[in-house]
């Protein structure tokens, strides 16, 4: 049995009560010589990972150098997106390569979706306990 890490849900505004909790995960994103620690939304309904524009810039990515165009749906369909590969580290697990749809939107949160975050990690939600458990699909590092 692989070891799991338990994480509490985050709240955006305690005044909103029980509805304000959401599963946010702290993840270190690295690309070339740069790295940043950001909060990502665990979104099991999202087909893909999504990265807002400013985070890509913070990782040193240049829009014109990312040649692969990604067509998103919903609110994000109106803006162009490009594929961006980064190394993602969720402590205490080993780093994994993650592919993001890097959108020109700056409003969207960092979304961790099925491709390929949930291909790298198993996550079990315990909403009644306002927590989730995450484990790497690889051996515990």
């Amino acid at each position, binding site marked *: 049995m692989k070891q799991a890490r338990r994480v509490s849900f985050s709240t955006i505004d305690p005044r909103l009560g029980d509805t304000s909790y959401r599963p946010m995960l702290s993840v270190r994103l690295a690309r070339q010589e740069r790295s940043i620690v950001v909060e990502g939304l665990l979104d099991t309904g999202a087909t893909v990972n*999504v990265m807002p524009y400013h985070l890509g810039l913070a990782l040193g990515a240049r829009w014109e150098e990312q040649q692969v165009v990604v067509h998103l*749906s919903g609110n994000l369909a109106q803006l162009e997106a490009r594929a961006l*590969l980064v190394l993602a580290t969720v402590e205490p697990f080993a780093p994994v390569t993650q592919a993001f749809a890097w959108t020109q939107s700056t409003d969207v949160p960092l979304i961790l979706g099925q491709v390929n975050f949930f*291909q790298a990690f198993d996550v079990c939600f315990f909403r009644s306990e306002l927590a989730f458990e995450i484990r790497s699909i690889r051996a515990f590092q």
Partner: protein
Amino acid sequence: MSLAEILPKLHELDRTDKWRTVQFLIAELAQEEGVPFTHGATYPIWSPYDSYEAAATLMQVLREEGAPYEAS
């Protein structure tokens, strides 16, 4: 003021005002319950829940990079 006192007055309202009353009460209850919704407001949904073409594109990029964690 009790409900028994209000009901006859509500009954006299025209259709439009009855709907407004319903909307008002729903908004009041939502606020009291901590539901962060406001009548008439727009709430963006960012989740790309059916972006299968995007998923295929990203999977292809991962394959070309030789990255692990591809779908088996």
